[in-house]
């Protein structure tokens, strides 16, 4: 049996979408003055991560659309 990656593009797209939403919301509502937490978060980097994940999700959507268009023809 050959090992196969068990997720298809649609699954990856869904994971990316959910993560992008979580990161975007967190980066917007996060305050730099959050009190006693020991995990120091760079707001700028968090925002960059959120934007990158969103772009990756949009790329998967674009791939699906392209597949649909070229699949029809």
């Amino acid at each position, binding site marked *: *049996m050959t*090992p*196969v*990656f*068990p*997720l298809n593009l649609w*699954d*990856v797209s869904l*994971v990316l979408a959910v*993560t992008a939403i979580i*990161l975007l919301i967190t980066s917007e509502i996060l305050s*730099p*003055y959050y009190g*006693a*937490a*020991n*995990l*120091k*978060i*760079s*707001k*700028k*980097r*968090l925002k960059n*991560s959120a934007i990158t994940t969103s772009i990756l999700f949009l790329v998967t959507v674009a791939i699906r659309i392209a597949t649909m268009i070229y699949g029809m023809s």
Partner: protein
Amino acid sequence: MRISVNSPRAIGLMLLLLGAAGLLVAIIYSSSVPALISLGLIFWGIIISYIQSEEYVKKTILNSTSTTLLTALDETLRSLDYRGKAIYLPPKYLNDPQSTKIYIPKLQNDTLPSPDATQKLEMQPTQKNAQGILVTPPGAELARLLETELGTSLLRIGLKDLPQRLPKTLIEDLEIMTNCDIQTSTNNITGKSPETQTNQNTIFVRFTTTALKETCKEATQLSMIFSNIGCPLSSVFAIAFAKATGKPISITTQNVSEDGEKNETEYTVVEEFTA
């Protein structure tokens, strides 16, 4: 219950390793559930490792060190007996256009000398019986950091663009303020305070800070600093205005709230020397 995260980097690495192992298992058994979980673990491992800030200093340490420096500057000026109004100089008054200096006259009513005179004074800082003294302002390094974050020199940004660009950088990038509002009175209608509505050459700045509130509060106790040189944050604005307008700037009034968080400062363009 309070959860203490002592080593976020170690947690990030652990998540990455768990995710990689899970992904391997998912590929071997062709199972989608462990694959989804592993992707999540890998993702959060990367995020936790990446989003950490490199260096943080406790606010109490920052405040205590900066306050001492301000006190030292105040004591030096008082012992040298320079009692005039501090003037933030634009680059044309200095030998190096990138440097930042304030001119403090010996007497209260003394005026600003010519650019040539301040350039000579800069070359001879130990000159005895000088009519004024050139001092590096408390916000000089912060202004340099601001220029680095802006990605350009303050000399290239006009006064028109400053009210948009400065607050964004100070709040979002440097995270040194939570609120910032700059009102220039060049067109005579933007100033909210009565003074800025009538005077053509004033700039009104209102900001809230939690990062340097103790320093700003302590600065109110220092007679030569408060309402003259200004606290480090008021000083940054004066430097920015002097560079952007190319004209000397002085602090007219400064009001700081009791806790040091809220600050309202008014800046005036100083009349230049005419031969």
